[in-house]
């Protein structure tokens, strides 16, 4: 059967990284400095929180849903991490992760049990998380004590041989997520749910549980993203993670995980995040005027999505 596929179809799965390389080269043509390894490492490490959040969101989009609560969960996480740091130390990280997991699971239960579409349920749960963040922070920007921050999370802010530890952590997280996706039962089930949910149910799998799990994972990763961001900024505020949501969704979509589910995955998101990072940085390299940046971003986005998404498995484009 593979003989029937046209060249474009076979190339399709390679389009995301080809797009990434092309964008890199285009910016590199403008200024070769851009391609210097340490510059790329810096660029990548700036995007660590966004990457972590996008990786989590990948699971939800992979099963055909959407998670709009990530940003609010990250906001909540920055606050919870900051206020619990003096009492819990590294445990603050654990607390935050559990909080994210719970918030995500709530979205999942509301979506699967109460049959509220994820677009709405996650938006609503995001509102709840935001309220928790605002309440816990006393509606103030908080900052971490330097000594406590170094003691508990010093390992996260340092670098070894020019490689920031946060970047290493992010890559480990991506690797773990990738492992879950391709080598573990939940990942396989997510793929099957995205591809053909009725077949999953007819195979005797409790699909609902896995759907809840996907949302819970997304919530956990969003909290983790908030934690890393909070440690980097050594503080927390219920608005600190503003502006994460749309770039994270865009990163997943540009990477080639369409909203229909079952296609794409964590590695696509890694590439997608890098595309977003490069496109954003390119505005400085091409000296895009302040008022034109949004237009530039939107247009590049359309071009990128038009090239990266695999339409062969979409019967109806909605």
């Amino acid at each position, binding site marked *: *059967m*593979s003989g*029937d596929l046209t060249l474009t179809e076979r190339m399709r799965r390679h389009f995301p990284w080809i797009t990434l390389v092309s964008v890199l080269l285009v910016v590199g043509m403008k200024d070769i400095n851009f391609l210097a390894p340490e510059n790329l490492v810096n660029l990548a490490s700036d995007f660590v929180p966004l990457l972590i959040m996008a990786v989590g969101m990948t699971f939800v989009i992979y099963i055909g849903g959407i998670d709009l609560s990530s940003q609010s969960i990250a906001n909540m996480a920055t606050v919870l991490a900051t206020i619990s740091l003096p009492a819990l130390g590294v445990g603050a990280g654990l607390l935050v992760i559990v909080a994210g997991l719970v918030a995500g699971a709530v979205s999942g239960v509301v979506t699967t049990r109460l049959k509220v579409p994820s677009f709405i349920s996650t938006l609503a749960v995001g509102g709840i998380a935001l309220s928790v963040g605002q309440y816990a922070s006393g509606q103030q920007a908080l900052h971490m004590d330097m000594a406590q921050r170094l003691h508990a999370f010093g390992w996260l802010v340092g670098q070894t041989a020019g490689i920031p530890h946060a970047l290493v952590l992010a890559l480990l997280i991506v690797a773990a997520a990738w492992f879950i996706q391709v*080598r*573990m*039962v*939940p990942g*396989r*089930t997510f*793929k*099957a749910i*995205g*591809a*053909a949910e*009725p*077949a*999953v*149910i*007819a*195979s*005797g*799998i*409790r699909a609902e549980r896995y759907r809840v799990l996907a949302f819970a994972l997304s919530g956990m990763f969003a909290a983790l993203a908030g934690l890393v961001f909070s440690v980097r900024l050594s503080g927390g505020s219920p608005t600190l993670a503003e502006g994460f949501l749309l770039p994270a969704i865009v990163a997943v979509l540009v990477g080639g995980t369409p909203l229909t589910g*079952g*296609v794409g995955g964590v590695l696509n998101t890694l590439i997608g995040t890098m595309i977003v990072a490069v496109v954003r940085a390119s505005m400085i390299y091409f000296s895009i005027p302040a008022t034109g940046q949004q237009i530039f971003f939107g247009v590049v986005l359309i071009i990128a999505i038009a090239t990266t998404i695999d339409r062969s*498995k979409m019967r109806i484009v909605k």
Partner: protein
Amino acid sequence: MFELKNVEKRYMGVHVLKGVDFRIDDGEIIGLVGENGAGKSTLMKVMYGAVQHDAGSVLVDGAAVNFRSPRDAMKMGVGMVYQEQSLIPNLTVMENIFLGFEKPFVRFGAIRWKKMAQAARRQLAKVKLDIDPATITSHLTFAQRQLVELAKVLALEERVEGRLVILLDEPTSVLSRDEIDLLFSVVRALRRRASFIFVSHRLDEIIDLSDRIYVLKDGSVVDVLDARHADIGTIQKKMVGRDINTEYYREDRQAPYDEDKVLLELDHVRIAGRGNDVSLRLHAGEVLALVGVEGSGREPILRTIFGMLKPEKGTLRIRGEPMRAFSPARSVAHGVGYVPRERKVEGIASGMNVFENMTLSQMRNYSRGGVLDIGAERALAREWIGKLSIKVPSEYADCGNLSGGNQQKVVLAKWRSGGSEIILLDHPTRGLDIGAKVDVYGMIRDMSAAGVGIILVADTLEEAIGLSHTIAVIKDGEIRKWFNCQPGAKPSLYDLIQHMV
């Protein structure tokens, strides 16, 4: 006059229509028969423009036409009454009747509902259906929807110059006797305006209604019979191409089942939403066929056994153990496997490869601590690819791209390799070609010999008779008659049909 000359069609390398010649005269009623997979549905799709033929020509009144869409065909007076619902459920009856042809009712941009309702009533009167045209379609019964489908096609009458050609695809399968009589009288009455192509599995109806009968086999027209001189036996023979012999269904391999070992028992189970009570026993090695007309309630029984429906009353025992909670997961854990009719939707997950599909129901066995042992999965897939001679390039092939027969083998391998002892087969040979069917029959015999209990909802009655040890005839959700079906003492088609309708 509507004519097909030497029409050819290939799908993904499969030669579906091989030089078909077909002719229908004005006012004629043509019966079209053939086994599933013989190419009937493709031929009809070519006629009403849903697919384009590769070679040959379609002629209307001697002039070659090229239908690029069903709409083109409609403009030439060719309309289709679908077997599967083609009415849009959330629209009203009249909107469905005039969908895409609303223009005559529009004045100053607004649809004049009264005028449309009147026109719709006229169409409904043709099929003698007395319902409010403003009813939402999803609120109608199956039979009513079928008649609305016909009314929709008959609306072509007012729009098209010249004669109509109307394709009826299995129109009687969900209708009661009265409704069938009504339908037939409507069709006969309309002969002066339209010619009909009538497709049905019910050969008696075909003979009753048609003038001539086209018999299709393996993509070619094998014979054209005059209905006045045709009888069911000869038609059947021509459809299958040989006498329906014992070999086809591997009857030689039908062994008696183990009467002492009851795998599954339904004890006065009341199916949800039906209110009928069903009792049956399935033994190890037994093939139990449920026969009945479409909508008679066979699927709900299967779905109840599989845990997708919760019985309202009664007990369901698996190996003597009464079930308390119902879910597919629980049934699978108790060794029940389900081969669904909608193979592409519920059977295989397209986009996933062979081994991923095979282990979907049994990932627990191929993982440790949640980590999948892909090596073992691949080994399993390779083993079953060999065992069932599944034609795939490798275990990495995407199941969505396999042919129907190979997909079905993958689904069967999924349950067999997982050790399921009770297998529910819902139309397992639907849309398969003869070769693949024979393979599936062989697998059913293998499973039976291995002591697996099978409940079969067959594609055709012949299949049910040929394969099963026991037959339960279902009507209106109840088991009306049991037949013992040992080799040599099998009931005839008529025995069964008598109790079905």
